[in-house]
């Protein structure tokens, strides 16, 4: 197991290098001078030159990359040209609402998706299966902006049950209010993931239900309920958790859309604003941090899988 962890950590290095290099090149291969682009049309040449030097753009590209990496390794994400404070602080403040929203989204997707997927698998080919499979097809075809707008139209405009936008901190407004504001964005963000989770769960459970070891266990006198709870669930867990883990990442990455619709001050909105203002330092930092989170999440999941499935450790 230790050996496996070590190998996995080692394999992370090239991935992280590629990620950082991609993000770095993305910004620095922009046609024209980033400094000029950031300052806009009304800037004087002196202002541009000053920013140019401040950003280290005079140096050759490889050297710039090394300097950037050096700062990153010390945990310094840089400073925003447009916003107050370091990028670290800005990110920290904006990460909270996004994480809360993502948590609601993933919880919704998993709590609805996993049971539905299982029911569909157990009732393969029957009406329940067809209904659930159809629902999951609708789910995977409902991007978050559609779902978000639809939910607002129904629950806020028509029924007037839930607020149409805004964000309330738990510390200030309490849990109940916080959740009232988080429910619609969470569902909107998680809906497409729910569709995916239904599909994956269904196919994972189906595959296991017809596995030879299930027949073998039945021939030993194991009851149906135990068969499902002990053998089927444990074997299906890997497939299900993989897709749930993936959904966490795509929710984090896709939060920009729901944060725009529901006006939530999260990293998605931050990124968009930074993109509009050409605040490259912030764009770089967000993309980097979210990718890093993704990589860490995948690693934790894989280690967990290695714990339940002895075969993985050997690969």
């Amino acid at each position, binding site marked *: 197991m230790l050996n496996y962890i070590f190998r996995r950590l080692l394999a992370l290095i090239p991935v992280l290098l*590629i990620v950082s290099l991609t993000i770095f090149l993305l910004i620095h291969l922009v046609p024209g001078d980033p400094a000029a682009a950031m300052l806009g049309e009304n800037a004087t040449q002196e202002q541009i030159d000053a920013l140019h030097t401040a950003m280290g753009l005079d140096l050759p590209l490889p050297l710039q990359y090394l300097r950037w990496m050096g700062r990153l390794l010390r945990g310094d994400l840089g400073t925003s040209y447009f916003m107050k404070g370091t990028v670290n602080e800005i990110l920290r403040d904006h990460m909270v609402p996004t994480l809360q929203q993502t948590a609601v989204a993933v919880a919704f997707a998993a709590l609805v998706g996993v049971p539905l997927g299982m029911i569909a698998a157990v009732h393969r080919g029957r009406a329940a299966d067809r209904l659930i499979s159809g629902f999951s*097809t609708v789910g995977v075809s*409902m*991007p978050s902006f559609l779902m978000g707008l639809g939910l*607002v*139209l129904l629950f806020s405009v028509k029924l007037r049950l839930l607020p149409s936008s805004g964000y309330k901190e738990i510390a200030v407004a309490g849990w109940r209010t916080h959740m009232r504001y988080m429910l619609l964005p969470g569902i909107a963000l998680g809906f497409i993931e729910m569709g995916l989770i239904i599909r994956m769960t269904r196919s994972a459970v189906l595959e296991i239900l017809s596995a030879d070891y299930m027949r073998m266990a039945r021939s030993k006198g194991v009851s149906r309920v135990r068969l499902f709870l002990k053998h089927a669930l444990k074997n299906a867990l890997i497939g299900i958790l993989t897709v749930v883990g993936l959904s966490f990442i795509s929710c984090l990455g896709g939060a920009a859309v729901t944060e725009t*619709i529901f006006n939530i001050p999260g990293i998605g909105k931050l*990124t*968009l604003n930074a*993109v509009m203002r050409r605040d490259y330092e912030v764009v770089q930092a967000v993309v980097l941090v979210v990718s890093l989170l993704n990589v860490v999440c995948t690693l934790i999941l894989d280690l967990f899988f290695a714990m339940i499935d002895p075969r993985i450790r050997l690969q």
Partner: protein
Amino acid sequence: MQQETFDRRQLSRVRRELLREQRALNARRFFRNRQAVFGALVVLVMLLLAVLAPVLAPADPLAQSVANRFAKPGEAGYLLGADKLGRDLLSRILYGARVSMTVGLSVGLSSMVFGMIMGLYACYYPTLDKILMRICDGLSAIPSTLLAIALMAVLGSSIYNVITALSIVYIPRMARVSRAAALTVKEQTYIEALRSQGASSFRIIWGHIAPNILSSVVVQASYNFANSIITEAALSFLGVGVPAPQPSWGNILSEGREVITTAWWMIVYPGAATALAVMGTNIFGDGLRDILDPHSN
């Protein structure tokens, strides 16, 4: 020597016949699969609407009419209503279909071509494989929406840049899918036999491996088609995709969001169009997958 060439010719003839038979079988299965046919029809109709938009659209999608701002559906000859500048919503949705279909087709095709080339050569050359797969790992570590937004930030918003950005996002996935498929084909005995008879790597890759992975590649391409329609609409919705005034389902919806309490038609119609297009493609892709890979169901 004589014998060898004979064997080789015969071998590839048999392979070709098998492939042809398989295709005929697949075609029959396709038309028996009602789902797939339905999906294909939806996509076909969308494509037709997009191509024929200039003929079908009742008005110029950019023509403004201050008098008819937010005309309700059916009012003043606006079948689906009008937007804040009095532009005809139906015409804008039809022209929006052009954007979606252009983006979907271009990204689907480009990811298919480049991803397949990468996958095929990766499966054949181990060093290349390592390098390409590391790059793909790195690129897919960045969540797709975020990568697309960042790319658009750098490239600037235009429909061509949307296509470029989404291709960069979807090519790594396609490369993985085709590499995995190619690896299983490559391990089959007849490829080994061809190699032992000295067939060139180009012939093996394009003559024998490529036709066999085509089915997985096409299925993935259809999903990429659907996903790029979604992502294009999302980017345009966020204001970093297709720039106004050119209509795209995403930017129509974005304008609709501002008037969600008063002009429901600005959300419902373009939303329905997006959902229908995506669902049609997804259903088509699922049908295709069931047909080409019966094992998966």
